């Protein structure tokens, strides 16, 4: 019985020109967005790879130089473009692409792609993920708002109730058809994600990542669809169902994500750039170079060096004291940077947390967050990159300072090194993250999606059943 009902409902969908029009529109938008996404991601990845290679070349070919002079000329760490950024750019374009790894100073990531936008439109540029999250849910709203309210207004619900059809079968028929529709959308997702990337060989995401992504979309879209069916069952007329369903869509897909970002920035305002620069100058530079922090910091680092080399006096080692002071400053400043940047990143994470908890109120926001997490285009991936880049900066600056300390002898800043040293300085390599780690981080969003799915099922079954009962009376 249920199978017959599902087939009937699905056949009605297929006969409905509205369904075909929406399906075709989605397909066109998804294909265009996906192709463009892969194209952009590929050219972005190529530019970053070229920049990283050029950075190495510029570094190695700098000629003879004092190691500390070289540390000021410095290197860059470029964030690799994750392949799934083609599908879901998340906040990738709003986050810096490169970190300058200079001596004395920790720098925030710079070069945000979003700054290049020449055109302002009310909604962002198309991406496959956005089309599914926003346009896909709108299509579901339009297709399903009359699922029960339409039957009731046309009088067919009463006829169905009169045939003795149970509420369970009726709901199963409606929801089964919905699941088929959503399943079709999920196949589109696979096509959008896999085909262009697989054809060009750019897709390097694992099967588990793709499967998790598809399951997230299936779960979120089904939950959303069932809520619309529930709204339809609750409404007295098609008009009321339409107003409520569109209101629900606008709230969870359009308004909440924007208001969430604004609320996050209001609750946890960004640190002013000048304020951070001043703090760095006043806390990481001045106390050491012109204040009284220098002496204890140098003494502490000197003790470390003496212990390492088993010497009683620094002078016995024949090392350069200027370089010791430079590294002592790094050790001193690193603690300050851990605190200042710790506060900055804690603030960014607090902003992110606001959206995390708001995602409980919106299946679309929960999906957006989980999707960008799986695509590694979220804040967490960006912070991981900046932390790895800073750890790399500290490693290479120490390497340069120690070379000067151990080899400069009496020459001090007149000492120069050559490409033998430059070649020993490692390139920045971003460390990958596993899908399980991502899922662990996004457990609230996953729970929110499952809760919406469950609530959708319960509400759709309960309210549709009630509508059937009312018609029987």
């Amino acid at each position, binding site marked *: 019985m249920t199978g017959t009902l599902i087939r009937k409902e699905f056949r009605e969908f297929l006969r409905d020109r509205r369904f075909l029009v929406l399906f075709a529109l989605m397909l066109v938008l998804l294909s265009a967005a996906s192709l463009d996404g892969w194209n952009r991601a590929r050219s972005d990845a190529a530019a970053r790879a070229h920049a990283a290679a050029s950075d190495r070349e510029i570094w190695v070919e700098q000629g003879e130089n004092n190691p500390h002079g070289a540390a000021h000329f410095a290197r860059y760490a470029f964030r690799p473009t994750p392949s799934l950024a083609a599908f879901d750019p998340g906040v990738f374009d709003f986050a810096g692409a490169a970190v300058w790894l200079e001596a004395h100073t920790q720098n925030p990531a710079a070069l945000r792609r979003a700054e290049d936008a020449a055109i302002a439109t009310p909604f962002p540029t*198309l991406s496959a993920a956005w089309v599914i999250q926003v346009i896909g849910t709108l299509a579901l709203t339009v297709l399903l708002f009359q699922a029960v309210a339409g039957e009731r207004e046309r009088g067919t619900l009463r006829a169905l109730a009169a045939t003795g059809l149970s509420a369970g079968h009726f709901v199963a028929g409606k929801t089964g058809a919905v699941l088929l529709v959503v399943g079709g959308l999920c196949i589109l997702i696979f096509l959008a994600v896999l085909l262009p990337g697989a054809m060009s060989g750019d897709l390097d995401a694992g099967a588990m990542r793709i499967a998790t992504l598809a399951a997230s979309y299936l779960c979120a879209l089904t939950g959303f669809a069932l809520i619309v069916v529930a709204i339809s069952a609750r409404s007295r007329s098609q008009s009321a169902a339409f107003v409520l369903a569109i209101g629900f869509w606008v709230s969870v897909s359009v308004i909440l994500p924007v208001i969430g970002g604004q609320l996050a920035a209001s609750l946890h305002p960004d640190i002013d750039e000048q304020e951070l620069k001043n703090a760095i100058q006043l806390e990481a530079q001045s106390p050491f170079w012109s204040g009284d922090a220098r002496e204890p910091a140098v003494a502490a680092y000197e003790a470390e060096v003496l212990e390492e080399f088993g010497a009683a006096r620094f002078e016995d080692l024949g090392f350069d004291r200027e370089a010791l002071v430079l590294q002592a400053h790094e050790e001193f400043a690193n603690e300050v940077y851990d605190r200042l940047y710790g506060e900055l990143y804690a*603030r960014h994470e607090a902003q992110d947390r606001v959206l995390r908890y708001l995602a409980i109120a919106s299946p679309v926001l929960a999906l957006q967050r989980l999707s960008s997490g799986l695509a590694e285009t979220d804040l967490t991936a960006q912070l991981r990159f900046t932390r790895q880049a800073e750890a790399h900066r500290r490693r290479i600056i120490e390497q340069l300072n120690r070379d000067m300390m151990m080899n400069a002898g009496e020459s001090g800043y007149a000492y120069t090194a050559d490409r033998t040293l430059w070649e020993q300085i490692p390139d920045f390599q971003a460390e990958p993250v596993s899908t399980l780690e991502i899922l662990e981080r996004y457990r609230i969003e996953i729970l929110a999606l499952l809760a919406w799915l469950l609530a959708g099922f319960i509400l759709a079954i309960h309210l549709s059943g009630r509508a059937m009962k009312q018609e029987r009376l």
Partner: protein
Amino acid sequence: MLRFHLAREFNALWRPAPRLAALALYAALIAWSVTDGVSWHRHAESVLAGAPADLLTDRSEWMADLESAEAGEEISPYAARPMSLTFLAALPPGPLAALAGRNEAMQPHTALISGWRSEVSLFQRYEVEGPVALGAGRLDLAFVVVAVLPLLVLLLSFDVLSRDREAGRFRLFLIQGGRAGQTLIARLIAVALPAFAIPAIAILVAALLLDAPVPATRVWIAGLAIYTAFWSAVAALVAVSFRQVSTGALAAVTVWALLVVVVPSTVRFTAEALYPLPSRVSYLTEARLAEGATRRNLAERAEIFMAEHPDEADAPDEAVPGFYRASYLANVDINTRTRGLVDAFEGQQARQRGLVGALQFLSPAIMLNQVLQASAGTGPARSADFRRQARAHLDVVLDAIGPATVGRNRLTVEEARRIPEFAFTEPAIPLSGLIAMIWMLVLAAGGKLLALRRAQRLN
């Protein structure tokens, strides 16, 4: 008669709870967006007012030192050096930026101009804003008007006739002497009036609070009125064209999705795909290559520069640090080497804007968005103008201080006085905005007339 219909429709239309809730949500969004916008505007003004004075050169002090040096008095070798002249380039918030500043936090509003800067480092900011909040953008009034207003108008008026037709009441209404056209107009006005009045009041309040110029406020109110009229005409056409509520609903949402979401996003996507911008990362790479080359061949590079400026004697003042000359030359070389990329970047941006300007007539949302941003003094075009003007000012400063810096001299007092301060020149509001508004008005009037003719046939 129309007044009677209007009074009746106002009562009837706004009684159902879902409609009132939709209107309340709309009003709340507008109140939120304007309150937040005004506070952002004031914050932006206070940030500019508190520009980092310690980073700027005190011109009078610097000139006094220079005059002393020119008079032959002994001053510090670091005093009144051309490289220490620093100017502030500031982009003040536009007159109604509070209402259309969705992505303004992303753009630079200040730049420090001096010989220590190249075009690449001119706008290199400490990018400390949280990407999540930046990505979401601010909910400004322009977004609410462009995206939410049409949805509200359509949502509340797509079924003004079909709900009666589907329920069989419409025939009865006509038999009793009712007229479809009058009912249609009355019901549309009942919806459009609050949809227009709430943001219009918000605009006036914001304009008063920010002391915005009257012409910009007029443009906003006129744009809002024409846009509301356009969507009211679309709602009228949907109302008279579809007998069934469900089909009318689909038509209304499809028109909204196409004109507000799909067409603008597709136009932008097409412009960005057809005219891709050179990557910022490539820009940085070119700058690094130029800097590396200059520093490796500094002596030779300085000799070439001095050969081009034979009037400046080289090395009269050995106390001048060598990195003054090195940094200056590296910055000049960076500018020369990256000029092609910058030109290509600006050229592609201009082509993207040109394409959007040509295709804007396909979507009233693009047309209104462009007009509102231009009159509010926000948007990427104004920001691009600021960057261009700041870069031009940097060129002026670099040209003025170059020979003296490389020759390890000071400027003369006369030369120093000729270097101007930076002043941002507001770009003219493009004429295409006016054409777009007229086009939208024509569409609105045509749509309304067509709908009325069809409504008369229903009689």
